[in-house]
């Protein structure tokens, strides 16, 4: 189900309605509108705790505000990373990888990791919603000019979430 809204206020309201109705919600907001403040995110956080659903707010934009104006329990920044080597074809990309950056969390210390999809790209096997950690030693061929592209960054607010915890804690 997809709801299209005109502004951030409606987006937040729609997310809140979704959470109250007991559905997992993924919202997307570009930029840093004024209405997206601590109160708004805190409301989402509390409602999702009350109904026990996941509420994820994806923030797109050139420089998402990473300040303290969010009531989310987990705050992540994600960027794409070079994918793993494809075991069958050296020319092709392998398992997709992401560089995740835990900016703030209630229960554990911030940190940075590289994760990859647990789903096998070549065969389509494995769970699509699982991530696995990538050892830093394996991911060793970063070129000199390769920098993490912050322009695609996104902060992800997660409710208490097994998947995120697995990603975060390993």
């Amino acid at each position, binding site marked *: 189900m997809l709801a299209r809204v005109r502004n951030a206020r409606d987006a937040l309201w729609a997310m809140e309605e979704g959470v109250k109705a007991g559905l997992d919600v993924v919202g997307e907001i570009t930029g840093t509108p004024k209405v997206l403040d601590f109160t708004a995110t805190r409301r989402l956080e509390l409602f999702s705790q009350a109904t026990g659903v996941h509420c994820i707010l994806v923030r797109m934009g050139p420089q998402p505000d990473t300040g303290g104006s969010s009531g989310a329990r987990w705050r992540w920044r994600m960027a794409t990373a070079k994918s793993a080597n494809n075991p069958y074809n050296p020319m092709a990309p392998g398992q997709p990888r992401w560089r995740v950056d835990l900016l703030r969390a209630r229960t554990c210390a911030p940190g940075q990791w590289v994760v990859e999809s647990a789903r096998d790209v070549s*065969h389509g096997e494995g769970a699509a919603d699982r991530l696995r950690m990538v050892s830093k030693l394996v991911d060793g061929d970063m070129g000199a000019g390769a920098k993490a592209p912050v322009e695609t960054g996104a902060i992800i607010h997660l409710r208490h979430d097994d998947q995120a915890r697995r990603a975060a804690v390993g």
Partner: protein
Amino acid sequence: METWVRAQKRRLKPAPSSICDTTTKPDAQPWDSGPFALLVTTARGDLIHGVNGEAAKLGLGSGQRAVDAAAAHDNIAMAYADPAYEAAALERLAAWSRRWTPHAKVDGVDGIALDVTGCLHLFGGDAALLDTISQRMTAMGLTVRLAMAPNHAAAHALARYGIEDKLVIGRDDLEAALQDLPVVALRINDASVTLLRRLGLKTIGQAAKIPRAALKKRFGAKTKRRDPRDDTYDDYLGRATGASDDVLARLDEALGRAPVPFDPLKEEEPLRILEGLVEPVLEIQAVLACLRPMIDRLMAMLKKREEGVLSLALEAFRVDGGRSSTTLRLSRATRETDHIMRLLLDRLDGWQSDFGFDALAVEAVEKAALKPTQTDHMQQQSKADVHGLIDRLRTRLGADAVLLPHLYNSHIPERAFVWGAQALPKRPTEITVPTIPDRPDRLFENPEEIGVLHALPEGPPARFTWRHTLHDVERVAGPERIGPEWWREKSTVRSRDYYCVETREGRRFWIYREGFSDDERGVAIRWFMHGLFS
């Protein structure tokens, strides 16, 4: 005393599409100038169903074969009748005729019957009533034949086969009036009419003179069904009027010796509740408080009918004569007052009450069947209230704001699903969800053209420009060729070669090349960006 009015409408109303034309071009219709006939298709070919005045002058009439008419008169215009539309129009006319009596019904395919017993004194007697009916219906553009008789069967016969257009027959004159009418007026089927005619019994009077026992023996209620190909036009009409082959019973009914059942149109209970308020109400919260019992009552009415409301209209009448109204549309039929109240709260948010509302009305405009459902023994309901959420979002964000994906049986990526406003239908089993793993998470509705540097003639992309940014391709998977749907698309549509590319920064895209060099469908090869992998 029972008095019956029988109105017959000459079917000069054409099919609905032509009716629409009359409103736009009132002076360019074939039935206005020259002979015109409406046709019905029966097992015996096209038969004339109705004619206009000029065609009647040529000797044409209902039941004749269309080919004969066309052969005899080359200037006759013809069109097919729309029986469903005629039936609906007749029913509307019958409902409208309830202005004269509460008991009205559609009679066959070409008439309405009114039971005016006890209503005559309101309209100045029987003749005056017929005059009024005639005037009103003529003003509506109908040609009517009216007959009033002590019973329905006699009125039916006199209106269709009587000498005059307007007849009032009392109980004493009944037998004399029916005497000379043809036997077909008795609502008997065609086989019985033919048999009576062969026996030399052409009028009702002649048939009535035959001893009852003989009639009973010859024309008892037979159940033998004839071959439908032998049906005549009268059969076509007769089926709708309930023609039977029991001549004796029909004769008794017409002569008033047996009762005729009369089943009037049911009056639809209007699903509208209008309530005047004791004092004008200013506050929206108070309006909602007044609305709640009204909606409760409306839901109780719907529950009795096992229906739920799909769209609900609310009207509020202001003290100064103004009126505010709104219509709620729901994603599925419901009878939950709480849910509706919540939607109304959102909807009434910006209403101006000015000097206050002094009357409120709610109406269930659209309804759908909503049977009681069995809950399981734990009385558990699904926790997620998806339809309620859809309603709330639509009420606030607009009807087209909430979209639901529908899978579509197509291998073209952008056609494999569509976003629709309707509730998610059950997935048809023949649609197989592709298990190909490498579809992008974000697919563009309209692929964006990109400039690509690639090895000739059709090597993988090496570098491309998308949205004014240059991307160096480091790794490529593909191509995956997706051919056009040749059974649907034009022959010039080219197949696509999809590549999953990863740039030096690790961004992953889904791009495709349209066509290949020797596909004989064009020379220029174009590249498009179609999606983003996460």
